């Protein structure tokens, strides 16, 4: 594999881990965030500082990067996610700003706006791929079971969910903490891949890219998120020469998908049994749609 192709695969794994986190939060729990790149930044700087300055083993550093992101998410999530409304979305902008301000003014610890060089290049293809496989395994298992059903119930109708005995605030916070953990891990891997990080890498544009990936793949479909990561990461690479249109494209994706097909490319379907069945219904005629119709 050429170095360039290898780099793209690593980038795919890194993006996929973060996107799975955002997918859990936005797609499965219905919480909109504008600051997930902030959690990536936390993971990236944590891992960079721990490996370079304190000579931690890189795996420990990556995991601690995820843990710190999760802790920060918890602190922000508790006051905002107990409320119904767009409070978390607004607070998440504030979070992104605050993290950037802190990193830029962090003195010798974060080395300010000019960036943090010399991070050990621990993110090899094998490391990135192993992390991706393990994180995907956990995520797909999680959504296929009682937690997945609970998250979706809180997303679809929080009043009905609380009348089925769910503490909806608890599940919303759990979802945020897990998604921040995924983003933190992703950021830590990115730091080890690039060897150099800068606060500006984790700006609104990165957050928007993650949300666009999830929306394009289909809210409530983890498989869709993964397909979408591949499509959007590759498109971004292909269109690098005209990168000034990149944000315009992300913005347009968000609007067009919401207007035309809010379920995204995959709807809520997952690979495997369910998808097979859907395809069969599509081709052999759907015997349900005749009697039901839209209500």
């Amino acid at each position: 594999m050429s170095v360039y192709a290898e780099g793209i695969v690593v980038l795919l794994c890194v993006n996929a881990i973060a996107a799975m986190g955002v997918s859990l939060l936005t797609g499965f729990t219905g919480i909109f965030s504008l600051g997930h790149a902030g959690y990536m930044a936390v993971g990236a700087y944590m891992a960079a500082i721990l490996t370079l300055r304190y000579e931690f083993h890189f795996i420990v550093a990556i995991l601690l990067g995820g843990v710190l992101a999760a802790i920060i998410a918890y602190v922000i999530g508790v006051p905002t996610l107990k409320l119904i409304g767009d409070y978390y979305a607004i607070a998440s902008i504030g979070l992104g700003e605050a993290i950037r301000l802190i990193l830029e003014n962090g003195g010798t610890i974060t080395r300010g706006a000019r960036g943090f060089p010399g991070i050990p290049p621990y993110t090899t293809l094998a490391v990135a791929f192993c992390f991706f496989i393990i994180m995907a395994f956990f995520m797909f298992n999680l959504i296929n079971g009682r937690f997945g059903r609970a998250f979706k119930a809180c997303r679809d109708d929080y009043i009905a969910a609380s009348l089925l005995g769910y503490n909806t605030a608890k599940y919303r916070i759990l979802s945020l903490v897990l998604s921040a953990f995924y983003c933190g891990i992703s950021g830590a891997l990115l730091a080890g891949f690039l060897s150099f990080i800068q606060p500006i890498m984790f700006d609104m544009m990165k957050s928007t890219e993650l949300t666009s990936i999830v929306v394009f793949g289909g809210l409530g479909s983890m498989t869709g998120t993964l397909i979408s990561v591949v499509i959007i990461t590759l498109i971004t690479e292909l269109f690098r020469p005209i990168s000034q249109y990149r944000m315009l494209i992300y913005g347009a994706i968000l609007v067009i998908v919401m207007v035309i097909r809010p379920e995204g490319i995959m709807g809520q379907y997952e690979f495997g049994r369910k998808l097979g069945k859907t395809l069969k219904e599509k081709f052999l005629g759907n015997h349900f749609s005749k009697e039901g119709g839209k209500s």
Partner: protein
Amino acid sequence: MDILLQQIINGLSLGSVYALIAVGYSLVYSVLMFSNFAHGGFLVIGGYICYFALNSMGTGILIAGFLSLLGAGVAAVVTEKVAYQPIRENTNNTLYLLIASMGMSIVIENIFVVTIGGRFRALPAIIPTQPVHLFGLATTSAFDLISLLAAGVFLGILQIILVKTKWGLAIRAAAYNLRIAGLMGVNVNLLISITFFIAGTLAAVGGIFLAVRYTLYPQLGAITIKAFVAAVIGGLGSLPGAVVGSIILGLAEMLTAGFISSQLRDLVVFFFLVITLLVRPQGLFGKNISEKV
């Protein structure tokens, strides 16, 4: 003493500009129950229309201002028609509206970036900025007094519209319950268009003042974050709340800048947000958030 008074006047002036933005945003929130992140885009559109009317068409400030308000109002209505109405009609999931509004915000900002470029532009000196001595007590700029006055006038007009006109009454009914307003025979789509038009116009007024204060650039709309925070402090969806929240933020920013450090003024905004969420999450004037079951 005079520095304090001066910073208070500056704070009130900045707060009044936030109020123009926050009130429009809150008005939309109260009717549609979603946070319209494209609101900052309307402000930028208003600013650029004013800029080009003054520079390329050579109009006076009154005509430029009028065109700017009209253009931003129309842009807001078009945004609603193109991006939100189809979603509203398909589902009542406000998450979709939230995502679409984020998309529209990025689209508007980047249309300016790719067409006319991202550089900073200064508006011609249309608003006097010379110093004014207030009864010998303090010195402030005419600009601050004018922006305070303009905000007062426009918010006053809004208040009259909401209280005295038929559509104002309908908007207030819709803020209570949009579906019931629809059942009472109000043309809901028209009502929403009017709401967006008002929000766009107020944003344009704010945009012109911000462009004079800070110069004009495509990302100027990002400053609406502060108006969002002001709306949360006052209580999401409450108009008096939006005004009070804005004034509090404006004062806090200017007093911080004047007496502590101007680098901390942005951090103070988020500090207020966090305190509000911890102590009184529904905001100063917020209704208790409940849904009819």
